[in-house]
């Protein structure tokens, strides 16, 4: 493993200081999984810090409850230091390692990747077809999309990118999991795996520990964050489902896109697309009202970049669905595919990776929960 950067070292040191205070206090025990997990330990190694940081959802409850929060001289800001560590986790375990640095300036990266992808698709579409055809109106019957961009090229490009993305995730996981001291087999134990999935699907730890909702964007308990995250997550899943069904239609039945408005892939896509507008827009909105105490400004680019890309994907996708028989189709298709391509390319180097590390951390949390605790005498 490469030597830790000075910034990472300082951060881990600060996280260790904060964790030691929390471990002596433990008042926040009931808020989320992070606290019971930290209480199992008396000392915190670097990988412990990465593990704990990835259990945190940055809901803010423990900052508002903290008697040592700034301006107290202990200057304890648990959510913020864990947020900073998370970014370093993504960087540290990124594959290929050299691309880990992208996390630092992700907003810019997203912008460039989007611009580049769109430009690429424009050049591509006009090269494979004649530029005039790009601005022509086609009826569905003419197989409008493939009139502009041959299906095999489209499928080939996206398959290659998807495979790379999957590989990057798998490699990230393969570096992270053993660093926590866990055997590969532990990850796939059905019961703990299912428990972690349950936490993910329900966003269990965004309930404020008491069912009132989490303290986001400010100290007032609210379900806003959980709701908008659900829209985003399930919207994304529906869009993936739409694509999968379409793939089956294409290869399984030989049915060519575009499909009718009432067809399964289109309905899934429309519903998912709406989720992917409401969710990211809502998350951006509450993020803009976020208590600055809780924000790590270095990550704004990454968070905002990802949410904006999701928004663009769904907006262009919906526009394409409804305008596909007009002259705007060619341009819309290139733009839509461009942002989708940019989204995919930046998935492993942007906010999306939280899903990987948080899920792994949750699996580990449930594994650990069943193990005997190191014996601290009861109070």
């Amino acid at each position, binding site marked *: 493993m490469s030597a830790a950067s000075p910034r990472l070292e300082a951060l881990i040191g600060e996280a260790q200081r904060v964790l030691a205070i929390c471990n002596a*206090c*433990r*008042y926040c025990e*009931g808020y989320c999984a992070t606290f019971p997990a930290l209480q199992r330990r008396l000392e915190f190694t670097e990988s412990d810090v990465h593990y704990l940081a990835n259990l945190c959802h940055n809901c803010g409850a423990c900052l*508002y*409850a903290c008697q040592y929060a700034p301006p107290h001289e202990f200057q304890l800001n648990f959510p913020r230091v864990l947020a900073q560590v998370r970014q370093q986790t993504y960087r540290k375990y990124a594959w290929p390692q050299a691309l880990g640095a992208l996390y630092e300036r992700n907003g810019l990266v997203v912008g460039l990747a989007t611009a580049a992808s769109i430009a690429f698709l424009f050049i591509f579409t006009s090269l494979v077809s004649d530029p005039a055809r790009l601005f022509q109106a086609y009826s569905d019957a003419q197989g409008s999309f493939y009139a502009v961009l041959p299906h095999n090229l489209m499928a080939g490009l996206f398959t290659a990118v998807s495979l790379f993305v999957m590989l990057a995730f798998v490699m990230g996981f393969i570096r992270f999991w053993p660093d926590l001291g866990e055997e590969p087999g532990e990850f796939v134990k059905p019961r703990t795996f299912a428990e972690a999935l349950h936490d993910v699907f329900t966003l269990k730890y965004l309930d404020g520990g008491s069912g009132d909702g989490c303290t986001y964007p400010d100290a007032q308990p609210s379900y806003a964050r959980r709701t908008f995250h659900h829209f985003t997550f399930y919207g994304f899943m529906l869009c993936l489902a739409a694509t999968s069904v379409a793939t089956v239609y294409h290869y399984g039945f030989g049915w060519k896109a575009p499909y009718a408005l009432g067809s399964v892939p289109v309905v899934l896509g429309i519903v998912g697309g709406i989720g992917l507008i409401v969710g990211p827009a809502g998350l951006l909105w509450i993020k803009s009202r976020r208590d600055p105490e809780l924000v790590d400004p270095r990550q704004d680019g990454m968070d905002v970049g990802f949410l904006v890309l999701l928004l663009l994907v769904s907006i262009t996708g919906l526009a394409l669905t409804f305008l596909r028989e007009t002259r705007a189709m060619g341009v819309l298709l290139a733009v839509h595919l461009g942002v989708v391509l940019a989204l995919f390319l930046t998935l492993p180097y942007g906010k999306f990776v939280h899903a990987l590390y948080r899920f792994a951390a949750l699996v580990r949390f449930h594994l650990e929960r069943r193990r005997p605790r190191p014996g*601290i005498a*009861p*109070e």
Partner: protein
Amino acid sequence: MSYDILVLGGGNAALCATLMAREAGATVRLVEWAPQHFRGGNSRHTRNIRSMHDAPADVLTDTYPEEEYWQDLLKVTGGQTDEKLARMAIRHTAGCRPWMSKHGVRFQPALGGTLHVSRTNAFFLGGGKALMNAYYRSAQALGVEVTYDTEVIDLEMEGGTFRSATVIRNGAEEKIHAKAVVIACGGFESNLEWLREAWGPPADNFIVRGTPYNTGRVLKALIAKGAKSIGDPTQGHCVAIDARSPKFDGGIVTRVDCVSLGIVVNKHGERFYDEGEDFWPKRYAIWGRLVAQQPDQIAYSIIDVKSMGKFMPPVFPPLKAGSLAELAKMLTLDPAALEATVRRFNDAVRPGTFDHTIFDDCVTEGITPPKTHWARKIDTPPFYGYPLRPGITFTYLGVKIDERARMIMADDKPCANVFAAGEIMAGNVLGKGYIAGIGMAIGTAFGRIAGEEAARHVRS
């Protein structure tokens, strides 16, 4: 502007009174000296409230009947308590949780963590600061006017009747008039001068665990105006905490929880008390006073590696050494003296079965003071030491009240429109000693009573 009720202070007792009075329809103004960030006095450092219950109730397991609660209190106070008021507070705890919940306070389900004493105490989710935040949110929603950074410096009384209070805000003096006042501005534990008056020079070495704002200025003013005081200025809740703690506001994390696992020596390297006498949290409340009685108010808790990791991790790392002599040097003790003490102690340890979760049979024989439980030889390096100082939690000297939380004057007559709650009257119940969670019990009970009675007074 004039209000029905003025509440002085911004901790648990003050907010309980405020919410009750407001719910009863009175207009309420609350003045808190601390800035908003530090609002809530010592209450924001708390974790739980001791609650009686005759059957398992929400977050409380088993039963904790009134009589047992009372006996526990009687034991620690040695009878220095007003039974009528104490039983009122105890009974009040049986039913106050739904009201607290209504105002946004959340309790923590028993998770089985190390801090749970879930039979006797109900734990606040997120601790006392979360509780205070909930109360302030509720007060705001009910339209209570709250001002921070406002110090009460005096009260104007006319023959046992409150007229107004003088406060300083932004450097300017201001008088606030009200039909009744609830005084809930804490004890005087953060007034170093007053502590010195009571304790003499040892007070200079005390560390105040809680808010720096509880300076007792209002308490002093009340006594000067003829309020009947109760309690002894040297009585209070005082625990042994890490000597490296901040002078104020270190809160819960500075406690050192390994006292009963090893030995405790003073600056001469001598043991001075039976470290194995009792469990946390009972022993917790006695070691502060014990350390206060030692020369220079310093002591050192010493353990070896066998005990490491068997107690709640303290916030400051221990001093660690490969030999006792080396550890002694780090602790500024005389190495020969410490070695001799440990040798005598080790020679006196009798074989037994160590179990820190029960009163085990590991004892010493033939030394004074003895160690009556959990006595194990200190012989396995590395050795660890924590320096200890008296950490003062809160003081018990206060004003006398009656069952309606009305302040009693020196002539034993109650003031019609002056009510007191919380630390400032806790001495009525706690003459000495302490049981975990009773501070919030007293503050909640009498805070709520004071608010209700003040509102009743205003209406009549």
